[in-house]
């Protein structure tokens, strides 16, 4: 063929789109800074890493596939309870426990996805919310298994690989959560840069066209929903293991709503938006609550309003536009 060079250019172009930018490398290096610069903030850093992982799981379905959810804490909580309960029942090995927690949440996610893909818009929002609240009530009702409102008692997480004990300062906790966040981020990054990620973007861009190119878009949605649920379950399992606590709040509507707020705040459909939004929301909350434990949410509320008015594509979208303009 005469223009056989051109497809290679296209491939190059596609490859370039998924190449690591210096910003990204810098970002992940910066994620190591708390170890050295803010060692007393490591517990907060772990909590942020867990929330960021949860936000990434929501970004996969909301930002990439356009599934708006108000019930994703369901999977976070299922993962948390699973990891917690097997620990209480005698298996406190963290890595295998975490994987099982993620798998469990993913399986439930796949089952639930058959309901989710039947509805759209407000109904979708409300079905996810309803399923989330049902799970919450179920956990409350299964008092003997879950500890009800008091929370699950007796979680003991063994040292990682039998070596690294979870310490009071949170070094091990942060190393563990950061490692998991990074791994899941790599997976998610690969996912969004894969043909599957392209299919998800196709669904978001024009769901009507998908059947006309022969796509099983509901199948795609089910798959991404299950993957997202599994990642949310991992995040929940991490919370259970690093804090040795699980209670009903891990399944609550507030947690579902908060994660969506953090994601939109950072900017949807960018993965890094999920992480950035989480960092900004939780750091702002921590700092504002440090100043005044009672009125911090006034400041948070204003932050959200200002971001919408002045950065309609989220904080990361806003930053990206500034960088683009500079170029």
């Amino acid at each position, binding site marked *: 063929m005469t223009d056989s060079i051109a497809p290679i250019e296209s491939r190059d172009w596609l490859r370039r789109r998924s190449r690591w930018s210096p910003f990204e490398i810098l970002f992940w290096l910066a994620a190591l800074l708390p170890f050295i610069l803010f060692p007393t903030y490591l517990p907060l850093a772990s909590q942020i890493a867990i929330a960021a992982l949860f936000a990434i799981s929501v970004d996969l379905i909301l930002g990439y596939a356009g599934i708006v959810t108000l019930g994703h804490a369901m999977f976070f909580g299922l993962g948390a309870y699973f990891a917690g309960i097997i620990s209480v029942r005698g298996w406190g090995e963290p890595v295998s426990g975490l994987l099982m927690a993620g798998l469990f949440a993913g399986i439930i996610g796949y089952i639930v996805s058959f309901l989710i893909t039947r*509805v759209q818009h*407000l109904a979708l929002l409300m079905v996810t919310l309803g399923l989330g609240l049902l799970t919450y009530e179920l956990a*409350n009702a299964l008092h003997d298994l879950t500890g009800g409102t008091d929370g699950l008692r007796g979680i003991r997480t063994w040292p990682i690989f039998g070596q690294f004990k979870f310490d009071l300062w949170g070094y091990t906790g942060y190393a563990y959560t950061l490692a998991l966040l990074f791994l899941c981020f790599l997976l998610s990054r690969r996912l969004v840069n894969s043909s599957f990620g392209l299919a998800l973007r196709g669904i978001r861009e024009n769901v009507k066209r998908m059947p006309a190119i022969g796509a099983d878009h509901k199948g795609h949605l089910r798959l991404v929903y299950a993957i997202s649920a599994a990642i949310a379950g991992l995040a929940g399992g991490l919370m259970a293991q690093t804090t040795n606590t699980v209670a009903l709040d891990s399944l609550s509507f507030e947690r579902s709503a908060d994660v969506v707020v953090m994601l939109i705040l950072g900017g949807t459909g960018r993965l890094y938006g999920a992480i950035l939004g989480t960092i900004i929301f939780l750091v702002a909350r921590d700092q504002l609550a440090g100043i005044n434990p009672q009125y911090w949410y*006034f400041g948070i509320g204003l932050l*959200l309003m200002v971001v*919408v008015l002045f950065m309609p594509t989220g904080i990361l979208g806003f930053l990206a536009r500034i960088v683009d303009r500079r170029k």
Partner: protein
Amino acid sequence: MISQIVIVLFDGFAFGMLLFLLSVGLSVTLGMMNFINLAHGAFGMFGGYVAVTVMRQLGLPFLAALPLAFIAMALLSVLIERSLFRRLYKAGELNQVLFTIGVVFVAAAAATFIFGTVQQVIILPDWLRGSVEFGGVRFGIYRAFIILVALIITALLVFGLERTRLGAQIRAAVDNQRMAQGLGLDVERVFAITFALGCGLAGLGGALAVEIIGLSPSFGFQMLVYVLIVVSVGGLGSITGSFVGAALLGIGDVAGKYFWPEIGSFLIYLLLVAILLVRPLGLFGKR
């Protein structure tokens, strides 16, 4: 048995009517402008605070406090709609969610600052307290009062929507915004008025709710879920839908707890999911 069914229906209906007042405004404004206002419950909350405050501080009677709660919230909503929400109509649903959640946060903080965290109490006039016996069944007088108020409001709404010029404009704007605009209708103005009415009704609902479900700065969050359930089950933009949805929810909730207390807390969510899976647009939704 019959008397029990009667009382369950009565109590559930009363609770449903409270939900109806709190949510009908959101249903219509959402149906008209696709504007997701999660802060709708905050208007209910401030309505409650207005009623409590004018009764406490100014010594006004309960019956005067109710319309004041309506008026105050309608005015406040105009202010907020014109200054803030107006900018968001084309902002996309996620931004609307984020912004109005921010408003809920700010409203809760403001309520805490002004009124404190304490549960507010409304002292009902004597004639609204207690219950009357009728055919061997005791009906709470206040609940009957709520039903009465809600029915009057519903009648006014239905009449207004069917028979007045504004009503016709609202219907046109809900049915097809673009066409209404094409016909020279000032949709934004119609929307502002509808929004004010809806928030006023939420304020009234909030004032009526203090006696039944209490009032504290977290009211806006607490009621959000219920309000969203009514709106989605009833269907967007439909007064009938909100009415039936709220009544169904109220009766379903009370009846479920009465007949199957073991699953009492599950029932409304089961209903919600089941109804939406079968009818994604809600019972009376058109789109």
